[in-house]
């Protein structure tokens, strides 16, 4: 069920994890350029080794109360998406053997809630996250052009 190694990180005082293989780099925050028309939790676009990558505030997307921290940027594997998540902090790599228990969760974004030595961790489903972001973009299409407005 669970990948062998998970990357632990925090956002809005909650612990999350992603399959380590889905993450290609953890970076310090860098210059980000705003993207007109995108929902507010899109900070904008960053240049990640030549790939134009959307930077999304994870807490904002999950509608959790964010914290005013510089935080870290967690870049998703470029073969899977052009997406980076702004999180509060990135912790250790967790070996699957150290998970002491797991329970399901009604949120489709959460594959399981894991019991770990660090506490309770929400293991995120990357595919569900990507699909959710895509659906949101499709639903929040720009205003239909209205006359005037100058």
């Amino acid at each position, binding site marked *: 069920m669970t990948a062998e190694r998970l990357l632990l990180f925090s956002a809005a005082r909650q612990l999350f994890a992603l399959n380590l293989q889905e993450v290609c780099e953890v970076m310090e925050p860098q*210059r980000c*350029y*705003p*993207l*007109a*028309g*995108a929902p507010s939790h899109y900070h*904008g*676009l*960053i*240049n990640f080794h*030549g*790939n*134009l*990558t*959307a930077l999304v505030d994870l807490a904002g997307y999950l509608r959790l109360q964010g914290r005013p921290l510089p935080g870290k940027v967690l870049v998703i594997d*470029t073969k*899977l*998406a*052009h*997406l980076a998540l702004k999180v509060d902090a990135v912790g250790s790599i967790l070996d699957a053997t150290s998970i002491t228990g797991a329970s399901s969760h009604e949120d489709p974004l959460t594959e399981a809630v894991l019991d770990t030595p660090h506490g309770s961790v929400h293991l995120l489903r990357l595919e569900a996250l*990507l699909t959710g*972001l*895509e659906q949101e*973009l*499709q639903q929040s*299409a*720009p*205003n239909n*052009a*209205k*006359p*005037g*407005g*100058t």
Partner: protein
Amino acid sequence: MDMSQYKALFLSESREYLRSIAEQVVALEQSPGERSAVDALFRGAHSLKGMAASMEYGDVVVVAHSMEDLMARVRDGALPFDPGVADLLLEGVDLIDVLLQDVEQERPSTLPTGDFAQRLAIYTPAPPKAAPADQAEPQEPAAADAVTAPHSATAPAAADAAAPPAAEAEKAKEPAGEAGGTVRVKTELLDHLINLTGELVTNKQRLLTIAGELASPPLNDAISETAKLLRSLHDEVMKVRLMPFEAISDRFQRSVRSVAKKSGKEIHFELTGREIGLDRGMLEQLVDPLNHMLRNAVDHGIEESGDRERAGKPARGTVRLAVSRDRDRIQITVRDDGRGMEPATMIAAAVAKGILTPEEGELLSPRQALMLSCIPGFSTAKEVTDISGRGVGMDAVNAAIQKLGGTLGIESEPGVGTTISLRLPLTIAIIHALVVQVGQVKAAIPVNAVQRTVELSRRQIENIGKRQMFQLDDEAIPLLSLNRVLGMPLGRFPDGILPLFVTEARGRRVGIVVDRLLGQHELFVKQLGRPLAKMAGVAGGATLGDGEIVAILDLAGLL
């Protein structure tokens, strides 16, 4: 011997043979006496069989072998090339295509090929229908004519006379091999090359920015020389990425054939410019729009045979697909000699649907009236199809073409026919774009979508109803704010001058007001990937010379 290393080459060559076979089948239906095409079909099936046998793909061998046998009977005169033969050969092409997918995915095939081989082996043509009054299948008599007439005309002299150009054309269609100074290159390598070239273009812009700050003539000279070399490199890399239009054209022939058959119409399909090279990325995105246009032309543009004859036209309608290149632009036209479209009827339909007021309808030129068919909602209405004879899904076609940085134009004459013209850039990887400022954000608009830029005084703005308009070339043009469209605070313009660019949206010219016009830039377009690729109104992104990232707007998706 391990043959797996040759699998990619086998798949690539086999698909070229399949494409060529499908094209020849459709061409032979148009002129069944073309001996060279019959020979080419036989050779195609034979070569496919040989390649598959050497790779030990038994199912492909069975299908190709039965196709080869069928063509041998046609070649030897034991069987006419009739629609039944064409159908079987095309079925064989589809069957092998699926088998090749299985090979590619390294999964066992479950397709029963024996039944297909059996049907080809025992195929005999249906007896000709005697009763001319049989209206149930109006396409049959035409197809039968197409078979029988050339038989009587296939005198050896005539066949020989026709042979040289056809043979030459056939030679051109032979799959390219390693010989003759050509090599096969993986497409990923080509994509990587264009990426590197694009990054160099971005870096050149960066150097230009630095040179502007340093004001150093030697540096300017060096950058100017680098820019020239880059332009040459870009042109050469783009040439490598070009693929001939024929890479996708076989499906159009088949699509026209299929719609004609279903609608019971007699259609003569002509294709010119199959050798014209287009950007590989663009070619893939042209398939659906062109298919749509051709199906519309056959299904809605061309009249029933009886109607055509009563109008003094040949019973057989003609649909022409032509591709040409004019310097760095590609022009594709789909022309039919059908019933055409009536601008006044289009306007009346738009007024009836509440898309236009009668007053607005009166202001439209005939060309603008025809473009109404590209408005979403207008074109899907059945009554419009009945009235105009055109328009199914044209909004989707127009949006797809604009996304490629192209434009779509319609010309039509009632009773004579309709021509839809697409003008496309040669490449979609590196474009010229107008960069604008909206609020705190910069955005880029491909210059193909910009008709002109204007600095408008507030005094020139007229309020007509709820709309704000201005006059340009004796035409009242509505104003829209890009800030408002993007959900951003509106601009202020304390000096009373509104910067705007004029574009075409929903068949009409529109003035799009922005906060500032920042000038034209050469941009390397990058795809945004998941999730932003799903964002309406954004076609990609690019990096400016100072490293700033801008979104490239897709106005068709935005407006």
